[in-house]
């Protein structure tokens, strides 16, 4: 039973990682990446590593996600080249 859950979680990790790179829209990619971070948190919980889970949720998914979204907001505005 737990093995099935682990396999499912591992597959969702891979799927969300794959979609992060492959999905055509950039904003979706970033949301998928944050989802990936939250799934990683679950994986750390399964690996009995709550310390990493906390750090992953706060830094990996939270701060990195915020940084990416902010950068996306700036980059999406086209700028005239030199």
């Amino acid at each position, binding site marked *: 039973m737990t*093995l099935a859950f682990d396999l499912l979680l*591992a597959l969702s990790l*891979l799927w969300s990682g794959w979609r992060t790179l492959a999905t055509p829209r*950039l904003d979706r990619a970033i949301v998928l990446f944050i989802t990936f971070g939250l799934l990683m948190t679950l994986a750390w919980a399964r*690996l009995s590593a709550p310390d990493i889970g906390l750090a992953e949720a706060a830094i*990996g998914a939270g701060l*990195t996600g915020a940084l990416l979204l902010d950068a996306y907001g700036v980059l999406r505005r*086209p700028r005239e080249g030199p």
Partner: protein
Amino acid sequence: MTTGLVFAMAGAALFALGVAGIVLIGHLLRRILAFNLMGSGACLVLVGLAQRHDVADPVPHAMVLTGIVVAVAATALALALVRKLHALSGQIELPDDADE
């Protein structure tokens, strides 16, 4: 098959996915995402493989905490560079290396 091994293998696949992404994708923001997938993969291998008999080991846990902080530092620096490049040239992909 233990929990540790499942996630170690998933980590190996994520690492390969990330490296392939960095090699194949031109868009810089995606490359940064790919780099993060690669880093997460290596961290999963570090913890998962050490716990392949499903007993928690605090040493790799501490190492991964270090790895996460290093990854966010690198990500922030990369984003600053991408934004600077965008502000200077309007590009979000690396231009060909102009030799002359």
